[in-house]
C-alpha cells in the first residue's frame, strides 16, 4: 500500500513535468487559478495559445482516441496531467467542457465528416464548446426541459431557454438537448443537436450571482433554424445521448474551494483575540479539527479513486462525497471565520478586512456551491440510490405524456 505512481505513471508524470517546466511558471499557493468567469478578451487569447501549445506537445485530448488527434490514454493519465498542471500558473476552465463532454458526445453520435471538421479546432483551442442542458423550469429535474425543436422540412426550428450554461458567452458551438415530442413521457420525447452559438436566434446573457461573480449564462433561442444533419442520435433518443455526455463529467482532481482548511488554520494562527492567537482557543481547535478530518478524508478518498483509475476501473458516484461535504464545510468555515472576527467580520472592505475579505466572499459564494452542478439533496439521492441501492423516489410523472405532467406556476 502506497501513494506512488506505477513505473509507467511515473514516466508519464515526468514527461508532463518536463513540458510544464519548459513552458510555464510554477504557481504560488497564494495565487488562485484564473477562473472561467474571469476570462476577458486578453485572457482568452492567452488561454487559447496555451491550449494550442498543449495540443502541439501532445497533452491535449489525453483520453481522446488517436484517430481524432488525442493521446488514447486512460483516465489516470488525465489525472496526472491535471495534478501537475495545477501547480503551474496557466489558464484553466475554458476548454474542459468542450473537450471533456461535448466532443466525446460528438464522437459517439456525429458523422465522420463532422468530426473531421470539429475535433481539430476544439483540440487546438481554436473553437470553444458549451453544453446546453439545464432549463429554468427544470431545476433538478433535468429531463423536464421545455425547449422545443419542431421539424420544418429538412430543418429544425428551436425556441426556448437554457440556463446555468458555463462559458456560453465564449463559446462557438454547443450541444443542445430539446423536446421534440411532448406527447410521450418526458425521457422519451427528447432529441439532441449541436448548434452554432453565433447563429441568428441565439442570445447569451450572463447571470449575476450573489457573490458578484458571473459563472453562468442564460441562453435564449428564438426561431433558431438548424439542419437535421446537426442532430446527434435518433429523434427521441436525446436522453440517452445526454447521459453519454454526463457520464463524461470531469473528475475533481484536488483543490478544495478556497479559502480552504489550510487557509482557515493559517488565519487562526495569525489572528489574535483576547490577547492570544485564535488557534489557542479550545473552541477554535475543536471546530478546525473537525473540518481538518473531513478535508483530509476527502483527499484520501480521492487517492482511493485514483487507485481504481490506475487499475483501469471507472470511478462511481462515490465521487459525490467530496461535493456534499465541501459545500457545507465551506459555508460553515466562512461563517466561523467571520464569527472569530466579531463585528469586524461584517466588513469586507479590503482596506481593513482580515485576509483581504476572502472569508466574506466565501460566505457569499458558498450557498451557490451547495446548489450548482447538482444540489446537495440530489447528490444524496444519487449516493442513496446508486451506491447504497435504495429505491428511487416515487415518480408520479413516469408514464405520463410530458404535456400532461403537472408543472405548477411555471
Amino acid at each position, binding site marked *: 500500500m502506497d501513494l506512488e505512481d506505477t513505473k509507467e505513471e511515473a514516466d508519464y508524470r515526468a514527461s508532463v513535468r518536463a513540458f510544464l517546466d519548459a513552458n510555464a511558471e510554477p504557481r504560488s499557493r497564494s495565487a488562485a487559478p484564473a477562473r472561467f468567469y474571469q476570462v476577458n478578451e486578453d485572457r482568452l487569447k492567452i488561454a487559447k495559445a496555451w491550449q494550442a501549445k498543449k495540443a502541439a506537445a501532445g497533452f491535449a485530448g489525453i483520453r481522446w482516441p488517436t484517430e481524432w488527434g488525442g493521446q488514447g490514454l486512460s483516465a489516470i493519465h488525465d489525472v496526472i496531467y491535471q495534478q501537475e498542471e495545477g501547480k503551474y500558473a496557466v489558464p484553466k476552465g475554458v476548454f474542459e467542457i468542450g473537450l471533456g463532454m461535448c466532443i466525446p458526445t460528438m464522437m459517439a453520435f456525429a458523422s465522420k465528416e463532422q468530426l473531421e471538421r470539429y475535433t481539430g479546432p476544439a483540440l487546438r483551442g481554436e473553437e470553444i464548446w458549451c453544453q446546453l442542458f439545464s432549463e429554468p423550469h427544470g431545476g433538478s429535474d433535468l429531463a423536464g426541459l421545455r425547449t422545443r425543436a419542431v421539424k420544418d422540412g429538412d430543418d429544425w426550428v428551436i425556441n426556448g431557454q437554457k440556463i446555468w450554461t458555463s462559458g456560453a458567452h465564449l463559446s462557438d458551438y454547443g450541444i443542445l438537448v430539446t423536446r421534440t415530442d411532448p406527447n410521450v413521457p418526458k425521457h422519451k420525447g427528447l432529441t439532441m443537436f449541436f448548434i452554432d452559438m453565433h447563429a441568428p436566434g441565439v442570445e447569451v446573457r450572463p447571470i449575476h450571482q*450573489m457573490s*458578484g461573480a458571473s459563472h453562468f449564462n442564460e441562453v435564449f433561442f428564438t426561431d433558431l433554424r438548424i439542419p437535421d444533419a446537426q442532430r446527434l442520435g435518433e429523434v427521441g433518443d436525446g436522453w440517452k445521448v445526454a447521459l453519454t455526455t454526463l457520464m463524461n463529467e470531469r473528475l475533481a482532481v484536488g483543490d478544495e474551494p478556497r479559502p480552504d482548511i489550510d487557509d482557515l488554520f493559517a488565519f487562526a494562527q495569525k489572528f489574535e483575540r483576547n490577547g492570544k492567537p485564535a488557534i489557542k482557543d479550545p473552541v477554535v481547535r475543536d471546530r478546525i479539527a473537525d473540518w481538518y478530518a473531513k478535508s483530509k478524508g476527502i483527499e484520501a478518498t480521492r487517492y482511493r479513486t485514483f487507485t481504481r483509475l490506475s487499475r483501469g476501473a471507472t470511478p462511481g458516484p462515490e465521487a459525490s462525497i467530496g461535493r456534499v461535504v465541501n459545500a457545507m464545510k465551506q459555508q460553515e468555515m466562512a*461563517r466561523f471565520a467571520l*464569527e472569530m*472576527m466579531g463585528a*469586524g467580520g461584517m466588513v469586507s472592505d479590503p482596506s481593513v478586512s482580515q485576509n483581504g475579505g476572502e472569508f466574506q466572499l466565501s460566505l457569499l459564494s458558498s*450557498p451557490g456551491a451547495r446548489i450548482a452542478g447538482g444540489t446537495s439533496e440530489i447528490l444524496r439521492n444519487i449516493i442513496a440510490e446508486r451506491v447504497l441501492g435504495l429505491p428511487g423516489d416515487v415518480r408520479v410523472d413516469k408514464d405520463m405524456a410530458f404535456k400532461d405532467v403537472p408543472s405548477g406556476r411555471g
Partner: protein
Amino acid sequence: MNFEFSDETQEIAGQGRRFLAGKDCLKTVRASLSGGEGSDAALWREMADLGWAGAAIPEEYGGHGIGYEALCAIAEELGRSLAPVPFAATNLAAEALLRTGSEEQKQAWLPKIAAGEATGTLALSEGNGPISEDAVTVRYADGKLTGTKWPVAHGATADFAVVVARDPDGRIVQVLAELGDGVTRTKLDSIDASRPQARLDFDGAPAALLQSNEDPWDATLSVIDRAAIITAFEEVGGAQACLDMAVDYAKTRYAFGRPIGSNQAIKHKLADVFVALELARSNAMMGALGLLSGEQDLSLAAATARVSSIQAFVTASSENIQTHGGIGFTWEADPQLFYRRANALALGLGSQDFWKDRLISALERRHAA
C-alpha cells in the same frame, strides 16, 4: 398565562406591516449593493412620524413612550421587511443616553431622535475581535477623543455617537460625540450594504462624558443586552420572512411532476427551520418580558434570545436559498438580501461566541448566588 403581545401591540405591528409592505424595501436594499445610499433617510423620517423612532423614548423627551413591547413588535416588522433604516443603531444610542445621559444631554438629543431629525450610533468596536473591555483603546482626555473605531453602524450618516473610550487613568468611560469637527468618517464595504458600516477616526474631536452610578463598562454591556433583545425580534421577523418565502416557493415550484415541497428533503429542512424559528421567537419573548419588567440584569435572557435568534435567522436565510435552488443564489432574487442581513445581524452586536460565554457566565452567577 398571558405570554403574547397585547392586542394594542399587535395592532401596531399590523399597521407597521401594512406600511412597510407598501415601501418595497427590498428594492432599496438591492440598490445599496450597487452603490446606493444603503440607509433610506426618507423612509426613516416617515417611520418617525409613525412614532417608531421614539417608541421607547418617554414623552418628557418628545418620545411616544409606547414602550418596549411595541418596540419589539416594530423590530420584528422591520426584520421581516428588511427595512434599510438606522433603527437598531439609533435605538442603541438612545438607550445609552436614557441610561447615562445628563438631563441636558437627553433634552438635546432625544426629542430629535423621536422626531426623526437626528440619528445616533454606538461606537464600541475597534476592528476585529470579540466585544471586550481590553480592546478599547480610544482615548478621552480634556473633553477630546483620539483614536479609531470600526465598524460603526451607520457611522457615516449618524449625527452623534455614544463612544466607549478610556480616560487618562485607563478607566473605561462612555462619552457623547457629535460627529462633526475632528472626526473623519469613511464608509466601509460590508456584507450588508443596507446597514452601512463606517470607520470613525477621532482626532481630538470634542465629546462630553456620560455620567452614571453604574460602572461604564457594565452600563455598556447593559445597553447591549437590551439591544440584543430588540435585535432578536428583527432576526425573528427576518427568519419568518425567509421561511414564508421558502414555503411558498416549495408549494408552487414543480419538479418531477409534483411540488418540490412534497419531497421530505425539503419538508424536513423547512420543519427544522420552523423549529429553530419558534424557539427563537419564544426566547425573544422571554427577553421582552425581562425588558418590560424592568429587571436590571438581563444578560441571561438577552444571551439566550441572541443565541437562538442568530441561529434561526442564519439558518432560515441559508436554507431559503437552498430551497430556491439555482435562482436562489442569483443577484436579482430576494433570498440573498436576507442572507446578507442575517449574517450581518449575527455579527454586529458581537457574535455567538461572545454571547454563549456571556450566557454561561450569567448561569454561573445565578448558581453562585
